[in-house]
C-alpha cells in the first residue's frame, strides 16, 4: 500500500477511535472546583429550607411533588431522625441556624419513644405495636451525639436498644418485634447494620469506658468478612454508614488487614459510582448512554462515604495511601451536589418556590433524605477543603 494512502487510513482510524472513545466511553467527568463559600452557601440554603418547611409539630413535608404541588403520603421516623442528624452535624460545624429546626424535630421524635427493660427506642408513628425499625433509633442516637450538651441518658437507652439487636455473630436485626420481645431473626436492612455500628461508635466516643466499642468491633468483623455473602447482597453494598463508622473507629484504634481491605473496597465502590455519576448531565444523549442523574440522597450518600473514608484514611496507616484520591473523589461528589441544588432563581419556575429552593429534585419530587444526605456530604467536604 502506498505510504500516503496508509497514512490517510491511519489518520482516519485514529480520528474514528478517538471520537468513539470520547463519545461513548471516556465521557468528561464534570468535577468543578468546590470552594468554602459555595459549600457554605449550599448548606445555608438547606437549613433555610428545613426552617421554612417545618410544621409547628416539628415534622417536615416528607416528600413534595412539584407537579401536583402536594405532599406524597407517608412519614418515616428513620428519615426524620436522619434529617435531625444532618442539622445537628451542621450545628456542630458552626451553622447555628440549624439548631432551631433540629430541636423542634427532636421534640416531635420524643413523642414516639418506647421504653422497655433498660432500653429506649424510637418507635413507629402509625402502628405502635408493629415491629420497630432499628435504623430510626440508630440515626437518632447519632444525631443526639452531635449536640453541644448531649442527652447521655437517652443516648444510653438508645444504645442499649441497639445492642439488644446485635446478634452474637455481629449481624444486626432490621426490626425488633414487640410480640416476641426479641429482634426479628433472618431479616436484614442494607442500611441499619452500618447505622447501628456508627451510632454505637459515636456513643463510644462520648462514653469511652462503657464498652460500646466491643459491640462495634463485633459488627465490624461481621461486616468486613461475611456480611455481603451471608445476607445475599449482590452487588456488594457500598455502605456509607460503615464508612462513617470507620471515621470514628480510627480515632481510637488502627484497623486490621481485613477491616482496612473492606474500607478500601467500599471506597472503590463509591469511587466507581461517583466517576460514573459525574458523567451524567441529564441531556438526551447522556440519558441514553449514562441514564438519569441519581437522587440527591444517592449522590449525598456517596459524598458522605468518601468524606468519612477520607477522615479515616488520614488516621489509619493502612489507608494512608488512599487519602488524597479519596479527597479528590469527595470533592467531585460535592461538585455534583452544588450543580444540582435548586437555587433561588430556579425555584421561581415552580408553583411553590419556598418548598423547592435549597433542595435536590428527581423527577420533580424531593424527599427529606435528599436534603439530609446532601447536607451531611457537603459538611464532610467542607472539612476536606479546610484541611
Amino acid at each position, binding site marked *: *500500500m502506498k505510504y500516503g494512502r*496508509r497514512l490517510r487510513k491511519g489518520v482516519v482510524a*485514529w480520528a474514528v477511535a478517538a471520537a468513539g*472513545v470520547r463519545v461513548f466511553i*471516556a465521557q*468528561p*467527568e464534570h468535577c468543578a472546583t468546590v470552594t468554602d463559600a459555595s459549600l457554605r452557601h449550599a448548606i445555608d440554603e438547606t437549613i433555610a429550607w428545613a426552617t421554612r418547611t417545618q410544621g409547628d409539630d416539628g415534622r417536615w413535608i416528607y416528600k413534595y411533588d412539584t407537579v401536583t404541588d402536594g405532599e406524597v403520603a407517608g412519614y418515616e421516623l428513620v428519615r426524620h431522625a436522619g434529617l435531625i442528624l444532618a442539622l445537628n452535624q451542621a450545628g456542630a460545624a458552626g451553622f447555628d441556624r440549624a439548631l432551631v429546626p433540629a430541636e423542634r424535630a427532636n421534640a416531635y421524635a420524643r413523642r414516639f419513644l418506647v421504653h422497655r427493660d433498660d432500653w429506649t427506642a424510637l418507635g413507629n408513628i402509625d402502628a405502635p405495636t408493629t415491629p420497630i425499625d432499628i435504623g430510626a433509633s440508630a440515626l437518632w442516637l447519632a444525631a443526639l451525639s452531635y449536640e453541644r450538651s448531649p442527652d447521655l441518658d437517652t443516648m444510653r437507652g438508645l444504645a442499649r436498644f441497639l445492642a439488644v439487636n446485635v446478634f452474637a455473630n455481629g449481624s444486626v436485626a432490621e426490626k425488633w418485634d414487640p410480640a416476641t420481645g426479641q429482634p426479628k431473626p433472618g431479616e436484614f436492612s442494607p442500611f441499619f447494620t452500618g447505622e447501628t455500628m456508627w451510632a454505637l461508635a459515636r456513643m463510644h466516643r462520648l462514653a469511652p469506658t462503657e464498652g460500646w466499642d466491643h459491640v462495634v468491633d463485633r459488627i465490624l468483623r461481621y461486616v468486613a468478612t461475611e456480611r455481603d455473602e451471608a445476607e445475599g447482597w449482590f452487588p456488594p453494598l457500598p455502605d456509607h454508614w460503615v464508612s462513617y463508622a470507620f471515621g470514628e473507629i480510627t480515632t481510637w484504634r488502627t484497623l486490621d488487614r481485613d477491616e482496612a481491605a473492606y474500607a478500601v473496597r467500599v*471506597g472503590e465502590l463509591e*469511587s466507581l459510582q461517583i466517576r460514573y455519576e459525574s458523567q451524567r448531565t441529564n441531556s438526551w444523549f447522556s440519558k441514553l448512554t449514562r441514564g438519569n442523574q441519581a437522587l440527591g440522597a444517592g449522590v449525598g450518600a456517596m459524598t458522605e462515604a468518601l468524606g468519612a473514608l477520607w477522615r479515616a484514611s488520614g488516621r489509619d496507616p493502612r489507608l494512608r495511601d488512599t487519602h488524597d*484520591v479519596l479527597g479528590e473523589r469527595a470533592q467531585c461528589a460535592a461538585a455534583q451536589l452544588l450543580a444540582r441544588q435548586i437555587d433561588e432563581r430556579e425555584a421561581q419556575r415552580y408553583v411553590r418556590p419556598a418548598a423547592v429552593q435549597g433542595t435536590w429534585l428527581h423527577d420533580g419530587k424531593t424527599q427529606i433524605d435528599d436534603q439530609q444526605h446532601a447536607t451531611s456530604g457537603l459538611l464532610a467536604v467542607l472539612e476536606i477543603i479546610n484541611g
Partner: protein
Amino acid sequence: MGELAQFAPNSNPPLTASLWLSIALFVTVVNSPLRREAVRKAGASSTITWIGVIALAWFSGPLLDRLDVSAPNWRIATGFVLVAAAVIDLTGKRVEPLLFRPEIGALALQTGRDHGVLPTALAAAIGLATLALWRHQSKPLGRAVALAQIGLAVLLLLDGVFAL
C-alpha cells in the same frame, strides 16, 4: 520494578494497575507473530512508534486532565479499545501494517498516566523489541496473542472499574 516505580507519578497499588500488565499489553498490541511481515513490507518504523508512545506518555497527565477523564476511567477506555483491536486482529482478513495505531496510543496514555514516562518507554520498548526478536510469522500464534490480549484488556478494564 521497585526501582522503576520511583520515576512514576503514582505507582502504589491499589491506586494503579500493574506495570507488568502494561508491558504484557504492549507485547500483545505489537503482536509480532501476526504483524511482523506486514510491518516489514510496509516499512513501518518502530523508532517513530516508540517516540510517539513517549510523547503521549509525556502529555498523558495534562491531556487527560484537560479532557476531564480520571486515570481509572481511562483504564476502562483503554481496556475497551484493546478488546476491540484484538477482535479486529482475530476476525479481520488483512493484517494492519501500521504500528502506531489507536490502541497503542490508548495504552501509551494509560501507562504514562499510571506509571510515568520512563516505565512507559521501557514497556513500549519491550513490546516493539519483539518485532526484532520474534522472527517467525504465524497467524495461529498471532491469533492466540490476540486472544490473550482480550483477557489482559479485560483485567485492565476491571482494574479501572474497581479503582479508587
